[in-house]
């Protein structure tokens, strides 16, 4: 069985010259749940965008057993479910159904199968009643769940979430955590929510200034207060 994510010595500079990744290496096993933490601007989002070839840095990236190169991008995007920080960017159809159906329709699945996928994905995120609702009017928490459903409908091998609990009220946060806890799938989640990290993620990776500065069991790293403080984090 392949690693889910293999990154070797990844470097990336934005077009304006800003160097956002300076030699990042990371391996994630199938069904592992890994949290990616670090201060704003550490490069978490940049790293994540390399995992389905939206950005292309120098270095090697393999995802779900495939090297991230142009010929594989279609396959990789079907296997990686990427949920962006702002759900509004992901919801651009008149109804929830259309949004969740986007991935399966794009893959060319027959109509009946699309429908089954959509219903299943919405059931997983507990939003089955929202099929015909207008995404625009939902609350942030609801939008977040729909955004997750839009990638679950593609049946991905790996789920990647960028700051999933940012901006949620306590109840929405709690129910999102429950949802993530019950999903049995490889997961890489960037977050500032240390409480959630401690609760859900056995492994934690700390990034700062484009580098990975620590990688290990969450319990151990959380106990090292000096390490956390040095990288702008707080012990929960």
């Amino acid at each position: 069985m392949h690693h889910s994510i293999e990154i070797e010595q990844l470097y990336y500079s934005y077009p304006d010259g800003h160097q956002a990744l300076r030699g990042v290496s990371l391996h994630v096993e199938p069904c592992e749940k890994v949290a990616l933490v670090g201060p704003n601007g550490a490069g978490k989002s940049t790293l994540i965008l390399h995992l389905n070839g939206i950005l292309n840095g120098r270095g090697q990236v393999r995802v779900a057993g495939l090297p991230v190169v142009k010929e594989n991008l279609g396959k990789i995007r079907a296997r990686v479910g990427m949920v962006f920080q702002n759900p509004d960017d992901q919801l651009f159809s008149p109804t929830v159904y259309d949004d969740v159906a986007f991935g399966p329709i794009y893959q060319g699945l027959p109509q009946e199968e699309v429908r089954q996928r959509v219903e299943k994905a919405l059931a997983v995120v507990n939003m089955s009643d929202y099929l015909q609702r207008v995404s625009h009017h939902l609350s942030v928490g609801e939008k977040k769940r729909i955004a997750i459903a839009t990638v679950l409908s593609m049946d991905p091998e790996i789920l990647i979430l960028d700051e999933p609990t940012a901006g949620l009220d306590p109840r929405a946060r709690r129910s999102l955590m429950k949802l993530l806890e019950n999903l049995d799938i490889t997961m890489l989640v960037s977050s500032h929510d240390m409480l959630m990290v401690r609760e859900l993620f056995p492994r934690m990776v700390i990034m700062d200034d484009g580098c990975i500065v620590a990688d290990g069991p969450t319990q151990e790293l959380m106990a090292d207060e000096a390490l956390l403080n040095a990288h702008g984090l707080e012990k929960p």
Partner: protein
Amino acid sequence: MLLAPFLSPQPMHIPDGFLSPLVSIILWVFSILVIAYSLKRVNEDLGERQVPLMGVLAAAIFAGQMLNFTVAGGTSGHLMGAAIATILLGPWAAILMMTTVVGVQALIFQDGGLLALGANIFNMGVIGVATSYFVYRSIRRIAGEKSWGVFLGGFLAAWISIVVAALAVALQLALSRTSPANIAIPAMAGIHALIGVGEGLITIGALALIYAARPDLLRSSKQGVTGGNALWVGGLAIALALAIASPLASSHPDGLEWVAEQQGFLNTARGPLYQIIPDYVFPGISNQVAATILAGVFGTLIVFGVALAVAYSRRKRRLGEVRQTQ
């Protein structure tokens, strides 16, 4: 191969150099008049919300023009936005928003020329909006409060705004004797009849989302703006005029050629003057080739001199800095 330029993604923005001065200036004057009238109208319709609403939505139209969809073989469809702007905020605000979008494109991104800006505003702003308004409003009137009016109206308004703007570009190029009418008009019309379908589909998609989320923005009572009837007639007139003029001009290019010749005043002045006073081109030189060479030498000297002067002053400045730091 002759069609290639008409296939580029944004063949609507005419750069400088392609329109004769007279055509440019007439269209500038016309656009300015329409903009002035729109400003007056918008004041009455939108009141004090106008600046933030039009400013931000103009930025959204600019950004929305980047959204694309794959058509086939590496080509993609884009949005121009005149129709959706008209549908959302009414024709007067749409004219102003398209003016801002086209203006920033010319001024900052050199997408379209500055002298040609009047023409570009005229094509994408004024007549794109006027014909969209005419079509959308007519269909909404027929459909009443039924939703198919929004979508059919939106599709046709978007389609016609593209086709009409493209025909206007072709006519202006032909009038400027830059592109022959019998090639430019059929090429632009044919290709934009297809591109217009893309615009229409994107517009339907946008309307579907807005209709689902905020139907209040599409209520037909919002469309009855002051001065709207005059514009409705204007849109009809423009559509008719182009529909009649374009096939005429492309099948009788000589007619257009004749019109074009009437305005080439400098060009017509050129021949006789050249014969009468050839010696005065540059005193003592009666030969145009020699004048060209002289201009080349003179130009090179200027450029060279300035380059030297700049290099020298930079060096002096740097030396000065070095001295100061020591």
